[in-house]
């Protein structure tokens, strides 16, 4: 099958959607499909052979933060050319409801289009204003995929219609086979994520740390991620501070080894998550998981059976749950065992098969993807015959 995938965000900037697109493209390529990815990128960034650059993304303020987007004639022309030359059987676009390359593609192409909705943003004012323009473009999507039941619900509320739920994929064996590192073992708690982004919840974990150390003074907290390390620990007393270790940005291999090594993985996020891929990665590596009770997390953790949940932003509850888990070997073993079985459904072999099933459903008997030719005025009034 010839598959065209559109990634809305810059290829050179790391992010969840980019990783998802990369892994999906490589998985499908491994199955023998012809895959081409269209993504914004700087011209000097080295790209994998299957990626086609859509030009540099322009940073613009959008919806309270700076988004890097592609628009304008040049981008539209590149999209058209890619669609025309690719002769795809199916187009798979990501995040079509943001003003991005994905929306542009939707506008410029016709034929079987599959769209994955990753985030579950509350409806923005720009979207309400643009709704009449957005709707005709979104109408072209033949199949919608939401990454979680939660994301599906927001999608249905905001745009109407329906979507199938296919979770994000993880290479389970990559994490399960990683080698644990001795220095990261022995009463350790792991945290991976941006240090300076409050949404990721590190401050909540920092607040809970003194109470955890009261009961279990040998505990260490390992933090992997970018951000200001000084600022993160400045409210902590010195004896607590020395139990925190910052690892900085870690490679994929080290991330897997870290997750294999820790006795507990804590995800104290306070909101804004629509899936929680890191929880799946932790479970794949066999780390017991303690997470805040966000809808998306509760769902990934099978309603709290595959990992423990605590009320979001409640440092006291987090500390109590962490102490309980760290002091009970059996409980951790139980979570490990449950997690190991539970994550199989997130493995690329399963997720990829589901995505392909969607492709096959929409391409069954449909024509291939083609550029959507604008009809001239004469044709509109029936004056031209084609």
């Amino acid at each position, binding site marked *: 099958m010839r598959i065209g995938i559109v990634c809305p965000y810059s290829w050179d900037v790391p992010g969840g959607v980019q990783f998802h697109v990369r892994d999906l493209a490589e998985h499908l390529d491994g199955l023998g499909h012809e895959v081409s990815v269209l993504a914004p990128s700087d011209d000097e960034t080295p790209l994998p052979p299957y990626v086609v650059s859509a030009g540099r993304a322009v940073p613009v303020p959008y919806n309270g933060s700076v988004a890097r987007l592609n628009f304008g004639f040049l981008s539209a022309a590149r999209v058209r050319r890619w669609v025309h030359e690719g002769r795809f059987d199916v187009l798979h676009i990501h995040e079509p409801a943001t003003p991005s390359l994905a929306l542009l593609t939707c506008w410029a192409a*016709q034929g*079987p289009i599959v769209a994955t909705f990753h985030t579950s943003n509350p409806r923005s004012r720009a979207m309400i204003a643009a709704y009449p323009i957005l709707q*005709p473009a979104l*109408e*072209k999507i*033949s*199949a*919608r995929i939401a990454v979680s039941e939660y994301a599906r619900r927001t999608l249905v509320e905001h745009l*109407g*219609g*329906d*979507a*199938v739920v296919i979770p994000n994929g993880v290479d389970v064996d990559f994490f399960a086979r990683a080698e644990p590192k001795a220095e990261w073992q022995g009463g350790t708690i792991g945290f991976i994520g941006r240090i300076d982004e409050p949404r990721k919840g590190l401050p909540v974990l920092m607040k809970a740390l003194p109470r955890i150390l009261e009961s279990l003074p040998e505990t260490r907290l390992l933090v992997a991620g970018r951000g200001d390390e000084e600022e993160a620990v400045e409210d902590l007393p010195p004896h607590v501070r020395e139990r925190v270790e910052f690892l900085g940005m870690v490679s994929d291999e080290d991330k897997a080894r870290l997750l294999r090594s820790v006795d507990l993985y804590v995800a104290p996020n306070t909101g804004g998550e629509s899936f929680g891929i890191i929880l799946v990665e932790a479970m794949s590596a066999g780390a017991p998981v303690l997470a805040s009770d966000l809808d998306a997390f509760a769902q990934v953790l099978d309603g709290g059976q595959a990992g423990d949940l605590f009320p979001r932003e409640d440092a006291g509850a987090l500390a109590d749950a962490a102490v309980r888990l760290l002091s009970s070997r059996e409980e951790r073993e139980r979570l490990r065992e449950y997690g190991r*079985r*539970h*994550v*199989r*459904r997130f493995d690329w*072999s*399963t997720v990829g*098969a*589901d995505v392909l*099933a*969607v492709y*096959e*459903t*929409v391409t*069954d*008997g*449909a024509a291939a993807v083609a550029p959507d030719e604008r*009809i001239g*005025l004469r044709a*509109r*009034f029936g004056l031209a015959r084609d």
Partner: protein
Amino acid sequence: MPTMTTLILLAVAVLLIGVYLSWTAGRLDRLHARIDAARAALDAQLLRRASIAQELATAGVLDPAASMVLYQAAHDARQAPEEQREVAESELSQALRAVFGESAQVEAVRAAPGGEDAAVELAASVRRVPMARRFHNDAVRAARALRRHRTVRWLRLAGYAPFPLAFEMDDEPPPALADRGNGAPQ
């Protein structure tokens, strides 16, 4: 020359309205095509599911009672006239759930010669039916939203195309086949 200006403005307005109407008709046309494609895909999936169910029912790997229940439901689903299709397909879903309610039954199918393929095919078809149905109903909803517009209704832009109807049925797959986490066939 105030009359001239008025005339020009009027002509421009008429032209714009014309373009808008023609564009809306184009949108509707595309939505109807999408519904047709989605409906064809749904039909194909339903037929595939009924065929594999019937195949399993006559293969002799299931006990006689289960075979009869499954055969009857699959047969009815294939033969049902259009207006009873939703009911017949729902009954097939129920029969599949009753027969493949526990994983032991699925294991029995997989153990039979050639059963592995049949189990995989059945698992795929019970997952694809809900998918195809959601895509179909999503297209129906989009078309209905547009057809409810005043302009579309008053000017009869939809022409003689029948008002699109959603396909409502019980498509809940049997748990033993749908649970991907515990070694179910994929």
